[in-house]
């Protein structure tokens, strides 16, 4: 009486053929067999319920694939008998069948421990002892990569906390933990493997909806991340010292991970709530039905009652049910990643260096008098072409050192989160211009100043939620981090909408410290800049957040050392904005080449304000003050470069020579030089450890004619002169 179903016949035939060829280690063959077996099961289920029998068969195949079957020969035999039984059932339409084959099958099933329900999954054989790689390079690679992954996890965790329903974000955190675990297993890093495994297991439960994303959960995972970072740091040390890794205490955190239980399970949105919110059903109506539902004997689901009583259209209930199911599904696709190649940074630095040399040699060739004398047009054209290509090459090689500032910005997310927990202030961090590129060597250098400014903004700038509310501001304070390029510089802004700088407090403090004379009334801008003075701190109470007085002066010093500038704009009650202006790279400087006697120096263009040749009458020598030059009724101290660096063969009187007025930290000096030779970009080269301590010089460079020029360091120069 079985219905005609040619598909069943076809599948059975193929299975019969395959089962003869099956071998225990032919995973692909087993896989194809398993797929067809499951297909057959679906087809057959429409005709007769053989589910338990099929479960036995698929269980055996799965057992073979997973190598969990004790006796593979018997298992393969059983599969053969099983397929034969199915073929007979198809012919005779009788189940369970009689005869030898069935007896045989039952015997095998018994021996394999089957009982109409699939094999008990045998415990997996203990994993092989992990291999130890005596390869420090591999371990060093792992350290770098693991660190990157942990950084990524941190930012994703902070994101997850704000978007707890984004399952893709959970996945994105789960994945690196899983990978860490796997690789740690190979490298014999038992504890890293153990902890990653615990967290992975916890996140797996989050994915399954057994555990809900909460602040506690995020905190716990962040703690695990910190612990893993400690382990990596220790490993790094151990690698250097040639010792084994230290043993960390994992029991406590493991216990806490285990305690995260199902009580914090993600609650399913209630159908009633969705109907009220989305479909305009009144809450009273839902309430009324719910109460009657309780009273009913065998209470049907809410949706059913609503439809039956004609209160809500079936479509609306269906829509709400779909939404109920859809919640917790991944929200957004991950962004595609551009392909990259990892290159040793030393190679890139070397390349940039050599490119600089190439540019110089190239211009030497072009400036060579003898080549010029040839007056060959083709040679001229070719040289021009070569010049363009070299400068393009130089640009590209420079850009290879550039990295987006986003990673640095995103590190601030974790910081802001921790700060907001500690201070009880609500902070809304907004990042802009994360793709803005910055020289790799500057990324690390700006990290500390940035941390300090962000801390200050949260700790001093932003008010408590209560204070904000009383001023009609939103409870959560805003903090912006922006980066963009402007005029060949990179600008980084840290802005908050907090209380702004307290100028009175600053001025009072500055007077107390003797930074401002009592009778002096500085302009608001100058007051603001006072916070950069060494030893200045406005925090009325020292918290563990804002530090102990080492602060803004260090920030300013760091920025200045990078040839950058820092500026403040602040309005009382409306907030403050710190603006960092930094050069794109530390390797190249835009400079004025000046002649002093036989020597040539390069002055950073950023510091030069004007050049002039004063009249004799504008030069004064004042007792105790040295030489002064009057420039538009302002007296500027004169600095004789040839005296500072030796070599008295230059022009000595200012009215015969040239003066370059330079500015640094609001102070001005007039530098005496013989002549300006030009303005050009020069590649900074270190003078080497021998001359590291030379005050007033930032480095050297090779000029177009192949000679060496020294680059002046304005900050150092000003200090040198005051000594």
């Amino acid at each position: 009486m079985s219905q005609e179903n040619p598909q069943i016949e076809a599948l059975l035939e193929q299975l019969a053929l395959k089962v003869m060829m099956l071998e225990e280690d032919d995973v692909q063959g087993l896989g194809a067999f398993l797929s067809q077996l499951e297909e057959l099961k679906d087809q057959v289920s429409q005709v007769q319920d053989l589910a338990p029998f099929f479960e036995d068969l698929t269980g055996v195949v799965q057992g073979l694939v997973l190598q969990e079957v004790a006796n593979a020969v018997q298992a393969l035999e059983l599969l053969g008998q099983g397929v034969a039984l199915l073929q007979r059932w198809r012919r005779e339409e009788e189940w369970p069948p009689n005869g030898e084959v069935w007896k045989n099958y039952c015997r095998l099933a018994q021996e394999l421990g089957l009982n109409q329900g699939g094999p008990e999954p045998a415990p997996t054989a203990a994993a092989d002892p992990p291999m130890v790689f005596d390869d420090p390079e591999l371990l060093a690679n792992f350290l770098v990569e693991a660190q990157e992954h942990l950084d990524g996890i941190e930012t994703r965790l902070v994101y997850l906390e704000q978007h707890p329903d984004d399952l893709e974000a959970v996945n994105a955190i789960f994945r690196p933990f899983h990978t860490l675990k796997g690789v740690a297993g190979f490298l014999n890093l038992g504890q890293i493997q153990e902890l990653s495994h615990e967290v992975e297991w916890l996140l797996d439960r989050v994915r399954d909806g057994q555990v809900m994303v909460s602040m506690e959960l995020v905190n716990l995972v962040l703690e695990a991340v910190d612990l893993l970072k400690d382990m990596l740091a220790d490993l790094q040390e151990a690698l250097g010292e040639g010792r084994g890794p230290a043993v960390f205490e994992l029991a406590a955190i493991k216990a806490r991970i285990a305690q995260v239980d199902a009580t914090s399970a993600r609650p399913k949105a209630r159908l009633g709530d969705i109907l009220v919110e989305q479909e305009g059903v009144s809450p009273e109506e839902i309430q009324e039905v719910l109460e009657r539902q309780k009273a009913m004997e065998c209470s049907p689901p809410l949706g059913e009652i609503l439809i039956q009583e004609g209160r809500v259209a079936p479509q609306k209930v269906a829509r709400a049910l779909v939404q109920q199911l859809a919640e917790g599904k991944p929200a957004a696709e991950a962004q595609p990643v551009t392909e990259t190649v990892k290159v040793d940074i030393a190679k890139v630095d070397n390349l940039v260096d050599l490119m600089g040399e190439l540019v110089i040699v190239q211009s030497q060739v072009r400036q060579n008098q003898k080549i010029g004398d040839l007056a060959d047009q083709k040679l001229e054209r070719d040289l021009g072409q070569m010049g363009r290509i070299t400068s393009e090459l130089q640009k590209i090689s420079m850009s290879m050192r550039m990295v987006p500032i986003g990673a640095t910005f995103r590190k601030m997310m974790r910081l802001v989160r921790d700060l907001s927990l500690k201070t009880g202030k609500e902070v809304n961090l907004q990042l802009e211009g994360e793709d803005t590129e910055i020289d790799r060597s500057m990324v690390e250098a700006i990290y500390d100043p940035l941390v300090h400014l962000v801390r200050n903004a949260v700790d001093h700038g932003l008010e408590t939620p209560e204070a904000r509310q009383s001023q009609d501001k939103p409870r959560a304070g805003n903090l912006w981090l922006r980066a963009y390029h402007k005029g060949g510089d990179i600008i980084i802004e840290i802005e908050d909408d907090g209380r702004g700088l307290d100028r009175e407090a600053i001025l009072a403090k500055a007077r107390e410290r003797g930074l401002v004379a009592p009778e002096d009334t500085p302009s608001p801008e100058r007051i603001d800049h006072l916070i950069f003075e060494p030893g200045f701190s406005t925090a009325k109470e020292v918290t563990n957040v804002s530090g102990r007085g080492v602060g803004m002066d260090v920030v300013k010093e760091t920025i200045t050392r990078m040839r950058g500038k820092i500026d403040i704009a602040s309005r009382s009650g409306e907030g403050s904005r710190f603006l960092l202006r930094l050069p794109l790279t530390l390797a190249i400087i835009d400079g004025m080449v000046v002649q002093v006697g036989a020597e040539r120096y390069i002055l950073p263009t950023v510091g030069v304000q004007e050049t002039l040749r004063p009249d004799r009458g504008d030069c004064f020598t004042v007792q105790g003050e040295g030489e002064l030059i009057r420039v538009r009724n302002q007296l500027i101290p004169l600095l004789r470069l040839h005296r500072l660096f030796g070599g008295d063969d230059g022009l000595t009187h200012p009215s015969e020579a040239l003066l370059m007025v330079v500015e640094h930290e609001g102070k001005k000096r007039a530098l005496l030089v013989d002549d300006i030779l030009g303005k050009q970009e020069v590649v900074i080269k270190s003078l080497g450890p021998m001359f590291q301590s030379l005050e007033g010089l930032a480095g050297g460079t090779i000029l177009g004619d192949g000679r060496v020029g020294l680059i002046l360091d304005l900050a150092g120069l000003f200090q040198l002169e005051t000594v």
Partner: protein
Amino acid sequence: MDKAIDYRMKVLIVDDFATMRKIVRNILKQIGFEDITEAEDGSAALQVLKNETIGLVVTDWNMPNMTGLDLLRNIRQDPKIGQTPVLMVTAEGLKENVLEAVKAGVNNYVVKPFTAEILQEKIEAIFRKQAGV
């Protein structure tokens, strides 16, 4: 060395974790393979497969952008590269993953952490089958 295996073939390692790629590369070298190339994830691997002749793919399961399973399905669907042997690397305890990959036509699988001997056995099994066909 097994005679069924042609050690000159090009092997493609797919894993998003560079350290893991290096580990697998080291093990493959121990086994005797010399021509080894790498890809960071499924989609990059597909590009390689389209442009080069690959004799064996050793892929991780767990990767962003395109998982190992999706890579496997993509390979099997493509008539040009559909026959390429694929060996899947998975972590312990993920039986559902293994079974899913097996049903999608993976040639064999290996569980992390594994030794050179185990990987060699699995690869030999794959190529013995291929030679037998």
